[in-house]
């Protein structure tokens, strides 16, 4: 037991894993915040201009079909080595679930509520902010949770293009065939993803209780 613990501590220190974890989470949070903001804006946009919805969602779907590694490589010449291509690829992947869920959520708001909102004198913008978006929050949160998992995966791949983060540790481990490093970094990355996802799950559940039960 102590030997295992000692190995883990050695691997952790040797690979600067505290620093790598911070880098990892930095890239991850930037990517998640960006994809959430862009995704929600696109969702609202295609909701208010329904004719564009199919086209926009199709384009995002096509982006989704590009293999993630290929996408990062495509972005390399444009954004150079480092965190840029990784963050951009995470965002491109994660926009779709957020945008699609925002769109579906807004469309799914029962017409009786939008009717009443209009009838008691809410303007279109007020109806959107006070009624439609709050009532779509559980679905939007569901989309963000999918985006979270996507971002976690793509950010880990970033190790291949010198983006830093836990992917770098994994990549080094593979190159130098250090089984311990692969194991420790792999398990830690997986554990992080599970923790963040459960946290998102709790938030989603809370939103459901607050906004989704009627």
């Amino acid at each position: 037991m102590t030997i295992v613990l000692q190995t883990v501590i050695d691997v952790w220190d040797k690979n600067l894993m505290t620093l790598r974890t911070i880098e990892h989470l930095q890239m991850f949070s930037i990517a998640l915040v960006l994809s959430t903001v862009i995704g929600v804006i696109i969702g609202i946009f295609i909701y208010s201009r329904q004719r564009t919805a199919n086209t926009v969602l199709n384009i995002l779907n096509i982006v989704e079909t590009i293999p993630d590694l290929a996408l990062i490589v495509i972005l390399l010449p444009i954004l150079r080595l480092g965190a840029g291509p990784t963050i951009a690829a995470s965002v491109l992947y994660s926009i779709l679930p957020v945008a699609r869920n925002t769109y579906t959520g807004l469309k799914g708001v029962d017409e009786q509520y939008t009717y009443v909102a209009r009838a008691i004198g809410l303007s279109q913008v007020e109806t959107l902010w006070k009624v439609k978006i709050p009532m779509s929050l559980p679905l939007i949160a569901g989309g963000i949770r999918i985006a979270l998992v996507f971002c976690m995966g793509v950010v880990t791949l970033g190790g291949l293009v010198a983006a830093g983060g836990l992917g770098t540790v994994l990549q080094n481990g593979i190159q130098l065939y250090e089984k311990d490093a692969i194991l420790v970094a792999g398990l830690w990355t997986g554990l992080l993803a599970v923790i963040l996802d459960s946290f998102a799950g709790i938030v989603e559940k809370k939103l459901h209780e607050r906004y989704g039960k009627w």
Partner: protein
Amino acid sequence: MHTERLFDRIDSIQIKGVTKKYGSRFAVKELDMEIHGGELLILIGPSGSGKTTILRMINRMIEQDSGSVIINGLDTRKLDPVRLRRNMGYVIQNIGLFPHMTIGENIGLVPKLEGWEKNRVKERVQYLLDFVSLPTDLFFNRYPRQLSGGQQQRVGLARALAMDPPLLLMDEPFGALDPILRKQLQEEFLKIKMEIGRTIVFVTHDIEEAFRLGDRIAIVDQAKIVQVGPPEELIFNPATKMVSEIVDTERKFKHMDTLNVKDLMSPFDSKYVFDSKMDTCDAVNEMTGRDLETAFIFDNGRLLGRITMVDLMKCRTKTQKLADVVRPLKTFQPLDSVAFALSELKKSGEYLALIMNEDRPSGILVSDEVLLKLI
């Protein structure tokens, strides 16, 4: 956003040559009508007759194809619809309280959007909750799904009154409620109407409701108004056969003498039974859960009387039992004649009685229901 008040009181609403077509069908055809300030005008007619369309053209939820609606000399088409709607209250059958907002937030929504201060909004909401007999401390922070149908409808009315509008539009507000509840809310609404003294346009398909609430009644049929006038005018001088059919109340009383109470009572249900030792606070929640506005109180199987939700809310202290607030109740035997029962009810000013079959409740008699069942 602060919207200007368009009118402090309604002098008149003139509907001039208004037409609305859906495809080739007329919803409203060349309609001319005047609604007087301060009156409660009922629009009644069969479904599809255009009564709701007329109502919705007043707040521009439906735009007419031609003609104009003029309020106090202002043509509604020249006004911003948002501003127009904030100057009138609107109540609909399915209420449409926003499920993600508390009762307080629902009622205070428009005042808040108008930029009122937090405290002013809160005071207004408290005043309105009190006005519709819902105690603030119990209801302010609840969500609509935690309220019974009758309570939700009260909140709907409070929301409509939030901006103190001089005009109320009501689209079958009591249509979805069960008969006992409907009758009770109508009674309360009558009191409210006296207090607020506003102009009200009220759509219904229930002629009893029309007679009880309306100052004037407009009969709508096939996109036209057939006749407008006070109830007695419609009864004594019906303009067409259709009007006389709608208002013909005579017929309803024809067989009254030959019928017994048991033929016309509504079945009794154990959900109406409450124990006299229950305390009033629990009873409020329990009645909400069972969606009741009225309950019958028994003490070891012996009938004590009835309670209403409104009574419970007005005299609520922690230690009070139902036995302390119960009010007397008329009872009849199943074989009593309907005519006798109705006249007794009328004498005591009640609209509800319990039918007892040898000390056991077997049915509920609601005066309005009796009339409707006789048609």
